[in-house]
């Protein structure tokens, strides 16, 4: 079967299942008795196995199969969850992830069999269950036990009823020396053409012999009146293996089970069925209690096959609640976004035409025109918001792998630590989310490795033995803030300074004059590592500088707050959107600039007398705050203006808890602007200009990134 078209979905869903597994196993380690988690894990592992099988990734299938076996035992209470089991399970997840990476790169799972892990799994399985299997080997239960081992695939053919005519045929065939085989075929739940698959199976096996009896009836199968499995008995001279092989070869067939039987066994089985039914009903009842839901079909009145089908269904992965979503290629969204951008530019031109034609006619016509423009404005703003929302994804997809990472680090570094996360549902533009993972991961590693002290030192300092790392995400204006903080040692600015002096970056005299912030900035310099020895966790000096440049490439920045002995906090600030923002248009010496509305706090009119000097820098004192002033004309190298105006317009901007006042000449009102890049050719190293935008009249305005002013 050509599966390449499903590859993307496979990769996507496998990632999802891996994440679920990882999360659940983490929880399970803390609460080994949590049945919900075990069930969830089982479902995910089972889906993984099914998908790997469908795609023909045999090694992956095998590994997941063995994992599933372990979960099966855990679920049935034969094994308990231990730390070592969790370790092995995580190894499995890593191995599956490695397979997945191979698949991503080459559409092939690779050749690593991961025998060691499989062996370990099986050892655990044997150790965990070995002593208990003995007592269960009561004669009449052997059958049941076997079925339990692979509960999703019960031997349904055992539950079939035989019309007299079929019995007759079977007996005849047996006399002729043919073998009687009972087979059950399980079709994947995603399969859309079940009847067609069934037909293919029948066609394939009929090359080897005759099918005597079907369950459900052949008519029902043809009409797709069956769940995801069907059974049949056939007579053949061929080996069972061969028949099962051809049946399994039909695509979208999940599993074929079968065995050789005899006529006398069959008649005996029919009697046994009574017992099995009762058992199944009991089992179902208990499962029902566990689930505390009455979703399963009523047990008592259900006919025999239905009652049997119910437990089988339970163990198959729960069908996802139909979530009404559509997968869309990000490129299509980009195209949509571009078109919305164009629309907004066109709308802005209409607005500016409307504004210019204002003076000459006050007629009803012109008023209608304005009303329509306002209407259009509302629509475009709404459209923009909708498109933006479509592109927004919660950062959850990125941060959810961190608890696992911290757990691993905790073992590796032999430090006790906990990760607390809040605001996982904070949403960011998809492109930002895709790229924020690595920097955040790095910051967390940094906190774990450099930040947190070992348990002994923590005890000495009167801190709880278990170190805490917080990852908090929240929205602030047009930015999303992600803070990574720890209650560890904090940054030792003295030793950073010494290191900088030692490396010849600064002289001791210069060092003495540096502020704490300036010293911390050294940490963001390329190949500046404070780790005393290189570990595989960190310390290679490739780090914070990359974090910083990655984040800056996304239009964000990083800030550090640290108190020696108490911990440090890395604050990552990211723009909410990358494409369209609400901005205040200002003029400086006739040049137009746009300032993101999100960073503007207030706008003040001041007289030059209000400007005071602190450390030879201009400041104003407003409502109890001393705010440094920035003269934009000077900052932007405009032609100097010789005469001071009588009143100055000051835009108070804010970044975190810092403020600055920008002196501009004119305010041109608020506008929705489409951010366009300046291109690669312009060396915009100061980053004061974060981009440009085309105004309604075709003029170009530059976008000021006020975050760079602090």
């Amino acid at each position, binding site marked *: 079967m050509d599966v390449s078209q499903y590859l993307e979905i496979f990769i996507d869903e496998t990632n999802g299942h891996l994440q679920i597994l990882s999360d659940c196993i983490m929880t399970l380690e803390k609460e080994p008795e949590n049945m919900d988690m075990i069930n969830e894990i089982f479902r995910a592992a089972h889906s993984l196995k099914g998908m790997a099988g469908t795609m023909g990734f045999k090694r992956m299938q095998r590994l997941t199969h063995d994992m599933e076996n372990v979960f099966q035992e855990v679920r049935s209470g034969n094994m308990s969850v231990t730390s070592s089991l969790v370790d092995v399970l995580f190894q499995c997840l890593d191995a599956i992830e490695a397979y997945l990476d191979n698949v991503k790169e080459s559409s092939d799972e690779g050749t690593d069999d991961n025998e060691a892990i499989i062996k370990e799994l099986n050892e655990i399985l044997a150790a965990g269950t070995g002593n208990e299997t003995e007592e269960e080997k009561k004669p009449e239960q052997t059958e049941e036990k076997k079925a339990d081992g692979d509960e999703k695939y019960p031997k349904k053919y055992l539950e079939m009823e035989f019309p007299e005519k079929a019995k007759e045929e079977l007996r005849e065939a047996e006399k002729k020396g043919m073998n009687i085989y009972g087979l059950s075929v399980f079709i994947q739940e995603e399969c859309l053409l079940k009847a067609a698959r069934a037909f293919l199976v029948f066609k394939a096996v009929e090359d080897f012999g005759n099918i005597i009896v079907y369950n459900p009836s052949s008519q029902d199968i043809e009409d797709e009146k069956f769940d995801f499995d069907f059974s049949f008995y056939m007579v053949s001279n061929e080996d069972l293996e061969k028949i099962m092989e051809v049946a399994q070869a039909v695509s979208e067939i999940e599993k074929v089970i079968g065995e050789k039987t005899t006529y006398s066994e069959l008649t005996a089985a029919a009697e046994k069925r009574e017992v099995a039914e009762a058992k199944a009903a009991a089992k179902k009842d208990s499962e029902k209690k566990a689930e505390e839901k009455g979703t399963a079909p009523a047990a008592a009145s259900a006919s025999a096959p239905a009652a049997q089908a119910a437990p089988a269904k339970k163990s198959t992965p729960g069908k996802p609640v139909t979530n009404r979503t559509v997968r869309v290629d990000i490129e299509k969204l980009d195209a949509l976004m571009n078109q919305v951008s*164009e629309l907004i*530019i066109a709308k802005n031109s209409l607005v500016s035409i409307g504004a210019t034609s204002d003076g000459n006619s006050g007629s009803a016509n012109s008023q209608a025109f304005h009303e329509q423009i306002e209407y259009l404005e509302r629509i475009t703003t709404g459209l923009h918001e909708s498109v933006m929302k479509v592109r927004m994804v919660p950062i959850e997809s990125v941060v959810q792998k961190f608890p696992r990472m911290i757990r691993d680090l905790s073992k590796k570094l032999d430090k006790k630590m906990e990760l607390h996360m809040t605001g996982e549902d904070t949403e960011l533009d998809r492109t930002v989310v895709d790229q924020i993972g690595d920097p955040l991961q790095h910051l967390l590693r940094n906190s774990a490795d450099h930040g947190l002290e070992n348990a002994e030192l923590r005890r000495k300092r009167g801190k709880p033995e278990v170190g805490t790392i917080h990852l908090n995400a929240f929205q602030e204006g047009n930015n999303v803030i992600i803070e990574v903080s720890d209650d560890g040692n904090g940054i030792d600015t003295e030793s950073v300074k010494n290191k900088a002096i030692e490396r010849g970056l600064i002289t001791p005299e210069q060092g003495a004059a540096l502020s704490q912030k300036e010293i911390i900035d050294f940490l963001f310099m390329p190949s500046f590592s404070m780790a005393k020895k290189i570990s595989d966790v960190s310390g290679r000096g490739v780090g914070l500088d990359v974090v910083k440049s990655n984040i800056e490439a996304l239009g964000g920045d990083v800030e550090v707050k640290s108190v020696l002995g108490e911990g440090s906090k890395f604050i990552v600030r990211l723009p909410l959107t990358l494409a369209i923002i609400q901005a205040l248009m200002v003029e400086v010496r006739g*040049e137009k600039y746009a300032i993101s509305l999100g960073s503007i706090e207030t706008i003040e009119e001041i007289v030059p007398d209000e400007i005071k000097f602190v450390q030879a820098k201009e400041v104003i004192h407003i409502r109890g705050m001393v705010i440094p002033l920035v003269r934009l004309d000077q*900052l*932007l*190298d*405009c032609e100097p203006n010789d005469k001071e105006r009588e009143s100055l317009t000051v835009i108070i901007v804010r970044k975190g808890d810092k403020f600055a006042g920008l002196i501009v000449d004119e305010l041109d009102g608020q506008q929705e602007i489409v951010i*366009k*890049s*300046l*291109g*690669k*050719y*312009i*060396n*915009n*190293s*100061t980053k*004061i*200009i974060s981009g*440009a935008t*085309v105004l309604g009249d*075709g*003029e*170009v*305005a*530059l976008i000021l990134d006020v975050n760079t002013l602090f």
Partner: protein
Amino acid sequence: MANNVSIAENGRKQFIVVKIGSEQYGIDISYVDNIVRMQKITRVPKVQPYFKGIINLRGEIVPVMSIRTKMDLEPDEFTDVTRIIILKLEEHGVLGIVVDEVKEVVTLAPDEIEKVSYDAKNSKSNFINGVGKNGEELISLFDTNSIIDETEAV
């Protein structure tokens, strides 16, 4: 890299002949996306001095470079015949360069192009990778890539 100019089927190449100062220069036509009239260039502060700024080309932002400033000639004087030549390179996007005048399009056969030696010290000659002979006139042929590469490097 320096010889990376497109070659027409018969080995002949087309160049747009422009005037910058008193000299004539040829620009390989395969790199030329567009030629537009002089328009308002929005100054961008704090960038390389030879960037005049950016223009709006049908909704796209295009950086505009002064080839005169780059070659240490006198600053541009904008006249009625001043044009901005929009160059397009596949991976690098678009870039406008200001020229004093666009004269004509010429087709040069390989034997009409003489390679010039590369002189690393003379920054001006770095942009030229050949001299074309169009009848009696000589045309310095721009090496389009070096114009762009260097701007990136600075």
